[in-house]
């Protein structure tokens, strides 16, 4: 068997670098320390090295851009490349954080030889701006080590590959740190040195795992590889038998599509939150409509209801000829909302509430619906905010002091035109907000106006008077 390993040494940095207008020195930091984890070629050229202190690195490369990877970034970057490689060959395995393994036996004929496949792989990665070192091997481990050591070649010469493996320094053989340390300290520097030792003695001293590892490299022990498949995605396209001139004419074919989607979701025990509808036209560019549910959803009926509401507000720019439903992300079904509260019977209520929100949003548009929230801030105009519906509760401390505040706060303070009839309370001095450039310093009073209404008024530092709200 012949394996090809693709080592992507700068994967994460290049993944981020794609969004930069031009290359510049970049590095990632070791989590929780001020040391460099990895540097890209631009930074390497300036002398930045892994393990270096941030201070040294910054001195060497003052323009160094530091990347703070988020959890899952590595996996996403790797999967992105895996998807592309998957289009070339379907037996691939992921080696996080920065490697891909490809079983090439079935592909050689398809691509007309190793040479062509090799080139194809290189081109695919290069077109993405991803640096890769490739290697072949008769075992997965061999291909991997040779690729990581930068010793790979486009060859299927079994004997030559075995020689290269034997010549590999144990430092590069990916044994556990302690094993490597021991090997080196016994003068065993190449894999050949290990291969020359009696297996039993080796296993006794360095553990059976070391021997097994060596055997897997050599191919004298099986080394099954987990096969990777791209994460699921739903796409269903329908060529319309009859050009649709009104959006209502799309509903029927969509019904069928949603049923397929529901089937798929039931089978997977999953749900979706967002659906894309693509509409194709003869001469007009493709239109994309996006539907969003408030919680993960899987029923065709719900999708249909949302779609109906959405299409009511949508006018077709031209007769549609083709229609596609597409879902990019499947979500776990939110079992929590479906099955809580044995006694209070809230799930249906909760469900109804969410469905209402979803419908309102579908009809009015996503941005038309808000929810009010208190904010811990002394400034009255900053003491509340709007959030999207069903947003999580604020995490800030909200031990709001028990303060007299008007129920009706004016959107903007208005200049006070008349002298109040009676002063009821005050002053309450509020001075805050220097940190965001909207500092206020005001003395607030509660006063009865000549109209009889009770108002919240203040005087600012200039001595000007304003009305800021009405007490009910």
């Amino acid at each position, binding site marked *: 068997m012949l394996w090809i390993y693709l080592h992507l040494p700068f994967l994460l940095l290049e993944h981020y670098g794609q969004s930069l207008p031009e290359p510049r020195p970049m590095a990632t*930091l070791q989590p929780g320390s*001020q040391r460099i984890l990895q540097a890209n070629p631009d930074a390497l050229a*300036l*002398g930045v*090295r892994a393990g*270096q202190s*941030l*201070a*040294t690195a*910054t*001195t*060497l490369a*003052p323009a*160094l851009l*530091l990347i*703070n990877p988020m959890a899952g970034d590595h996996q996403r970057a790797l999967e992105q490349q895996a998807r592309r490689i998957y289009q070339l060959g379907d037996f691939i395995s992921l080696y996080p954080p920065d490697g891909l393994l490809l079983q090439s036996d079935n592909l050689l004929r398809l691509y007309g030889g190793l040479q062509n496949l090799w080139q194809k792989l290189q081109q695919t990665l290069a077109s993405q701006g991803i640096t890769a070192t490739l290697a072949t091997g008769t075992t997965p481990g061999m291909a991997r080590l040779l690729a990581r050591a930068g010793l790979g070649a486009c060859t299927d010469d079994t004997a030559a590959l075995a020689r290269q493996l034997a010549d590999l*320094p*144990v*430092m590069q053989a990916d044994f556990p740190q302690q094993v490597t340390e*021991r090997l*080196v*300290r*016994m*003068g*065993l*520097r*190449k894999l050949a040195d290990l291969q020359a*030792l*009696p297996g039993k*003695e080796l296993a*006794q*001293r*360095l553990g059976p795992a070391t021997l097994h590892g060596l055997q897997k490299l050599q191919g004298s022990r099986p080394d099954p590889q987990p096969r990777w498949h791209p994460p699921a995605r739903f796409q269903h396209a329908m060529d319309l038998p009859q050009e649709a001139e009104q959006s209502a004419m799309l509903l029927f074919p969509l019904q069928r599509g949603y049923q397929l989607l529901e089937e798929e979701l039931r089978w997977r025990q999953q749900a979706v939150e967002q659906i894309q509808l693509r509409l194709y036209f003869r001469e007009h560019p493709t239109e994309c409509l996006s539907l969003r549910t408030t919680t993960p959803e899987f029923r065709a009926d719900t999708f249909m209801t949302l779609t109906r509401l959405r299409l009511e507000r949508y006018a077709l720019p031209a007769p549609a000829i083709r229609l596609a439903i597409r879902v990019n992300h499947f979500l776990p079904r939110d079992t929590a909302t479906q099955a809580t509260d044995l006694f209070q019977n809230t799930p249906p209520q909760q469900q109804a509430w969410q469905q209402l929100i979803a419908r309102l949003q579908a009809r009015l548009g996503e941005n038309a619906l808000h929810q009010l929230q208190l*904010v*811990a*801030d*002394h400034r009255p105009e900053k003491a509340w905010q709007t959030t999207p519906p069903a947003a999580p509760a604020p995490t*800030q*401390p*909200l*031990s*709001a*002091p*028990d*303060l*007299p505040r008007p129920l009706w706060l004016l959107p903007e303070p208005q200049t006070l035109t008349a002298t109040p009839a009676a002063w009821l*309370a*005050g*002053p*309450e*001095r*509020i*001075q*805050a907000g*220097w*940190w*965001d450039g909207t500092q206020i*310093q005001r*003395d*607030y009073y509660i006063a009865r106006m000549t109209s009889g209404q009770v108002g919240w008024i203040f005087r600012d530092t200039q001595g000007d008077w304003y009305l800021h709200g009405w007490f009910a």
Partner: protein
Amino acid sequence: MSYAELHCITNFTFLRGASHPEELTSQAQALGYSALAITDECSVAGIPRAWRALKHSAVKLIVGSEFQLRDGPKVILLAENRHGYAQLCQLITLARRRADKGHYQLFTDDLFTQTLTHCLLLWQPDHDWTQDLATGARLIQHFSTRCWLKATRYLAANDSQRLAYLQQLATSLQLPVIASGDVQMHCRQRQPLQDVLTALRHHCTVAEAGFHLQGNAERYLRPIKTLQRLFPSPWLAQTLVVAGRCSFCPSELRYEYPGELVPQGFTASQYLRALTRQGEQRRFPGGTPVDIQALLEKELSLITELGYEPYFLTLHDIVSFARQQGILCQGRGSAANSAVCYCLDITEVDPRQVDLLFERFISRERDEPPDIDVDFEHERREEVIQYIYQRYGRHRAALAATVIRYRPRSAIRDVGKALGLDLGLVEQLLSGLDWRDRQDDWRQQLLTKGLVRNERQARQFMTLVNMLLGFPRHMSQHVGGFVISAGPMSELVPIENATMADRTVIQWDKDDLESLGLMKVDILALGMLSAIRKSLDYLRQRPGAPHTLQEVPAEDPATYAMLQQGDSIGVFQVESRAQINMLPRLKPATYYDLVIQVAIVRPGPIQGDMVHPYLRRRAGLEPVSYPNDALRSVLGRTQGVPIFQEQAIRLAMVAAGFSAGEADQLRRAMAAWKSHGDLTPFRDKLISGMLARGYEPDFAERLYQQLCGFGGYGFPESHAASFALLVYVSAWLKCHYPAEFYCGLLNSQPMGFYSPSQLVQDARRHQVAVRPVDINLSDWDHRLAHDVSPPALQLGFRLIKGLSANSAQRIVESRPPAGYQQTRQLRDLAQLSRQELETLASANALASIAGHRHQARWDILGHDHQPAPLFVADHSGAYRVTENAVQLPPPTEGENVLDDYHSQGLTLRRHPLALLRGQGHLRHCLTATALQQAETGRPVAVAGLVTGRQRPGTASGVTFVTLEDETGNINVVVWLKTARQQRKPLLTAKLLHVKGILEREGQIAHVIAGRLTDLSHLMRQLQISSRDFQ
């Protein structure tokens, strides 16, 4: 109408108070307050500074403290008198000792169970009627007329209700009410900083802090007119009643010295005289010289006059203890190097040899206790500390605190945190900042590097950082400043827990102690004393050699000859590169030359441009002249150039007519000059004083500039004198008994300037035979092998990284008479783990029983995993040496060298550079030795391991690189421009190749770097793997 503020915290209430005590006091003065109470939270740490500021003002200082009871309201306790102060200190001690460092715990019941009979209580009710009535009744019962209700007005929405409530409560309880500002800052403009501190306290950003922040900026020292608008006037008047009842002043804290050291039938003064007399006979067996007699008399009468006998008796007692225990120690500082201290054995500095400034010994005018530092062997200082605790009791002896303040780095970090700046970016900036640049420059850097988004934010950031700079951040433990009191310490100053278990510190730092006149003894640790004591111990094996400091022959020409060559690696104080370079230029030939040598290589003399004039005059290249005899008396010993701090002070007295006390103020101002001090007030007085005494204007100006140059970095002669003694002794040991010297030095590591590797190389260059670590020959410590003469240095297990002293102990104790024969036997007898055995194998310590290090490790890894039997017959027959079936290849020389470095940081084999040279890698490179013969001014190439990179603050932009090769050290000078262009090799190379020009200063050769090349990859060629060379 006047007013007394009775509730005010300073920034010694960490992360709450937003003003320095001095800012609050001067604001209170400006506003015409009649009194100001400093009431930091469970602390009196802010008192000394406030007191210093208010000492001579009309504003009365009231000492108090604020407490948030765990189960009740917030209360303020004020000290009515000295008793009240003691009670307050004890309460704070109680609350602090209950909690971890930095925290406290106090409960309502404590107010009733602790003695607080002389404290006044201000009570801020909780606004829960039933609860408050109950609490009030209890408080009245205990404090009767010493209890007040405290009213505050923050201009909050509920102010009027709160006021009404308080009125009602006061009527019900029949309690008087006082007005209070609950002050946390001296002026309104501190609100942003206050908010930053609040955010930091709550571990969030200012924007996130929400209602943790105060709604306005009213907690400042308000003008009396404003207060009159806010409070009923009886409440304001009542503050004066309270202030009137507080009569305690910190100046009453007249310190009482411990008295138990004086035996019955003596007064302290008589006893000190008796001890001095005894010492005199020992020190001057041929009779005390007349001038020393006079000096002793002068010193003793001054000591008596100021009542400092117990201080000297205390030191004598501590030093005597150390001597009994064989712990080497030596005092330093102005008071230490006095004739009395010489007679009391506190110092070895002979008053005949050094002329010390009597005014700094003790000054009448300053009214401050003498200051003596005593250095002890660093490994045995703890014994001395324990002795002090034991002798005086933990309630009477405590360590002084050190106030840790915000420095630029911490201030930038914390303000950044509070403003929610990207912390990674802040760190990146901080690590990129060059702190030697002027302050304005790094401020500029902050702006240009885009940390902040806009001008407003930038201004805000910098303003806040500047305000926060110098703020106390927390209390830490002083390195060794002990305070010992006659009565319980906690009646003098509160005691709190330190981070270190079983350590307690008082709430005041060194400066506070000084200003309050408390005695402090500095118990410091000095590695060189350990090394010297050990070396002297080893000399007991050598007939005729000295065994004590006193027995070391004085003024030995061979020792000075060695130092004049710059051969001083390992010698105390003069072993740094700068010192080594200075030695051949200064050519010390007497003890006093060493005193100068110690003091001259310091930023003060260097920046004051005193080094070159001194050297030129010493070499006779420039005439020495004095404007008059008065100056000759001050500067005569240093060729007319001021070198020591004392000379600067005496100059001010002699040339400008300063009194001793004024001169001492100048010294303090100079010490503080670099940070925040200001010399300008002294400038006029200095210059006009000198002009009045007939000096030329430009001479006066030059002298003033020189004094400025001294800044905080002038080195006192009194310390240099003590250090010079140790310089001499260590140099003498190195010169005559190098094996013993290096052995003592290596056994006292870590200390000093050089690594064990550098010391061992230097030892071998001085013909000391060094033997490698061996399982059957080594102890934990290095030792001397006397089978040859002079003795050889047998390296010990302490050198091996990763081997504990305990394991080494087991190896030595279980060693059979014939030595270990086999690794299994070693494992069983010494109960060593597999990992420890591997460590030994890596260090090649098993070579004598298991072959080379590769084979030894293979051997060990082959051991069965059975636990060793509990009882093992100690006859080696049980461990037959079995022939190993597998024979591993022996390590190459290069591998051995690298493994030696890896396992013990040094090698006794060939130097890596010798190996590389042998392999032909370093053609055209001169060795350190060859460099000595090479022609000055010619281009050379050198290579070596980088053992040092320094950018001293005194040399603008120059980097000094030290390279080590098989023959010695090479000095490389890299100018700023070269450094900038070749940053990468300069900063990262472990093995560096330098092409440059050879230059000489006297005998010392430097290579002025041109091209730098990183040859670190060659280290890899010494072996095959790519292991990092450490």
